[in-house]
């Protein structure tokens, strides 16, 4: 640990004044994310237009020439993610922006990014799937994909913002996390947030903390590109500085040379996130201490759920609200802790059950888990969430497995037919 940045010592760096467009704006979430990226010092976006994330790319393209950045619209999503990996290794902060099918196309190179421990940010404005699905409408069904989509074992960080202001704030946070842990950080927004227009306040530059890239500072000949610091993250060097880098997507040793079987060190790719999870995870909790039922939600659903929760509280039910700001790594400990205190978790999400499996896993059978699914196309009817809470509060029995709450939409479509 003689070289590189000491992991414990925090270097405080502020955003560059030129990059920050201080002021109040009335913009949608996509644009806010682009502004956030610029404020975070992102200088390169390789993108390919896909609804509903195009606006973010466009906004970046408009701003980039003024802040010394550059953009390229690549020929496809495979190209756009590969190009940002290249840009990161030549020293820039970089981001790519996509949705739905584009995300699926990126899978191979997300794996490469994880393998090369390349810090980059990926903004995925989720739409309804599978396949082309509903291009202009919301979904949250890529959550598991973001974690498991590429071949092999790796870990990523995923953040799910719920308003344009958060799109701005958390894009900056995403860049900071990716620089800190040298891993892909995904902003798993959804179409609703991406296309929602609200007031966004961009603070002054010196109010924005920026995590600098951990560049290696020791003698060149001693540099080992994959030799980690104490926090399991190796310092980085950039191409063209004379380090004779050898960076390969093959399984490699500390030097970067391929090995023919994995070594215990290769497990670092997952451990650097798993063991640092407590530092990464951010949660918003509300009235959770004496709650019987806790609603676990993320992204736009957390705003929709509030209406259901208010309704339930008005009926005298004790409902807490746990909003996952970071979805991956999953807040295992917190859920396990809560599971011993509460009767049930209610998990509304715009998919047919993804994060709910994680909640169930971490609840260890201590509390019931109620899923309120929504196929996509729009957000939940708050009424459904309210009913699910009501049911969860009343259910005395421990029910094995996930309990799916039958929504109004379900009844409308499937029970009418049968």
């Amino acid at each position: 640990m003689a070289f590189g940045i000491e992991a414990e010592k925090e270097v405080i760096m502020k955003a560059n004044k030129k990059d920050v467009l201080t002021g109040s704006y009335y913009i949608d979430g996509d644009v806010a994310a682009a502004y956030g990226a610029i404020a975070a010092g992102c200088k390169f976006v390789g993108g390919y237009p896909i609804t509903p994330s195009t606006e973010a790319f466009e906004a970046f393209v408009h701003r980039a020439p003024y802040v010394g950045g550059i953009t390229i619209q690549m020929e496809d999503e495979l190209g756009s993610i590969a190009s940002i990996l290249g840009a990161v290794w030549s020293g820039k902060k970089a981001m790519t922006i996509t949705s739905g099918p584009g995300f699926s196309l990126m899978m191979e190179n997300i794996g490469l990014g994880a393998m090369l421990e390349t810090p980059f940010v990926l903004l995925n404005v989720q739409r309804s799937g599978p396949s082309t699905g509903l291009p202009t409408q919301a979904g949250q069904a890529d959550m598991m994909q973001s974690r498991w989509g590429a071949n092999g074992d790796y870990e990523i960080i995923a953040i799910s913002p719920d308003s344009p202001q958060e799109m701005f704030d958390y894009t900056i946070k995403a860049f900071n996390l990716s620089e800190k842990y040298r891993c892909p950080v995904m902003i798993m927004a959804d179409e609703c947030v991406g296309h929602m227009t609200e007031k966004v306040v961009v603070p002054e530059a010196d109010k924005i903390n920026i995590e600098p890239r951990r560049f290696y500072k020791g003698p060149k000949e001693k540099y080992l590109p994959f030799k980690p610091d104490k926090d399991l993250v190796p310092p980085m060097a950039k191409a063209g500085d004379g380090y004779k880098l050898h960076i390969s997507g093959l399984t490699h040793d500390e030097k970067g040379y391929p090995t023919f079987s994995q070594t215990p060190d290769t497990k670092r790719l997952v451990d650097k996130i798993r063991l640092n999870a407590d530092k990464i995870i951010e949660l918003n909790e509300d009235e959770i201490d004496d709650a019987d039922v806790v609603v676990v939600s993320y992204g736009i659903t957390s705003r929709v759920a509030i209406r259901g929760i208010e309704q339930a509280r008005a009926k005298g039910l004790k409902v807490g609200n746990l909003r996952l700001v970071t979805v991956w790594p999953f807040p295992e400990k917190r859920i396990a802790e809560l599971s011993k205190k509460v009767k049930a978790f209610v998990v509304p999400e715009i998919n047919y059950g993804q994060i709910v499996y994680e909640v169930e896993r971490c609840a260890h059978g201590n509390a019931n888990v109620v899923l309120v699914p929504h196929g996509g196309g729009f957000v939940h009817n708050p009424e459904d969430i309210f009913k699910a809470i009501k049911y969860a509060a009343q259910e005395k029995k421990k029910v094995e497995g996930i309990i799916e709450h039958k929504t109004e939409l379900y009844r409308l479509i499937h029970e009418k037919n049968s």
Partner: protein
Amino acid sequence: MKANSKGVLTGTHNLSGNEAIIEGAFAAGCRFLGVYPISPSLEATDRFLQRSGEVDATFVQMEDEISALAAVLGASWTGKKSMSVTSGSGLSNMMEHIGLGIMLQTPCVIVNVQRTGPSLGIPNGVAQGDTMQARWGSHGDYETIVLTPNSPQECFDLTIKAFNFSERFRVPVLLLTDAYIAQKKTLVKIPPTKDLKLISRKLFKGAKNKYLPYKNDKNLVPPMVNVGDGYRFHVTGLTHDERGYPVMTSECQEACVRPLMEKITKYQDEIIEYEEVETDDADVVVISYGATSTVVSKAISLAKKDGIKVGSFRLITIWPFPEKRVRKLAQKIDAFVIPEINFGQIAFEIERCAAGNCNVFFVPILGGGLPTPEDICKSIIKASKEKKKIEKLIEL
């Protein structure tokens, strides 16, 4: 349906896993392979090409995996049973089209010979790192069927099964093998043609103008037609109604996407297959699949010598996950031990299903080679000694 004797190489042959898969495919009636070469799945391609002349099968090597699967989907709609073979990052590239296959409800089989990852990893290294990807890798909600053989014989059998499932449920079915099984050569018994039980897609038989491409029958699977039969249908990857036309509402999404999942979950009992050995009075149950399961049996016999009551539970169908059975087992035993050649994938799923009823020990095995029985045995012993309940996935 009877198999076409042309493709069935009845008899006993010395085949590698890769070759057995192709023989299985031919026996199942597969006549189209769209592929892009990637180790360690190459022998499969070779075998297909060698035999394609004899069985009148069509082969195309496309420019990448993306188009390979696209061609497979296209060919499937012409009425040919179709498949693709890939590995590692090739599967990552196919993700978009797995989604399309799900949405269009196109029967096809994808063989993934797993290699060590992430990214390029170790090209010929044994691994099981794509199990979660097989379930969650494409965007949006879907359910799929994933089978894992643990011997060339099973490669043959399960390939036929995979085709049967894919035709029956109109879904892309994944066969997850690994570099070890794929290259291991053993004797494979191929039964006579008349003993093969094949399922072919249900074709629509009604009047041409009455055909609705996505009107589900009572099994939630719509009957299919072939391109060129005069039905003049339209299909789209967009959310669609019964006619196959895009409709942009959440009602339609619910009506369109949920059955895609329910058609599998509803029949999961018929799909799920697993192998249990001495689990009845076991204290510890080892859960394994694919390559690791070949080592587990030895490890168990070692552990038994130490007086530990160990059972074995081998997953043959990984997805849909045999949730019910695992839940039941969890209530009876002290611990699960899960050796996997990855850093924890199915282990999470088992932790979920154990629901706090028993301890869950997970043994991450480094990719590239097989674990030794002794190592696994040690883990079993460690697991059996832990008497306290720990509400957490325990890594050994």
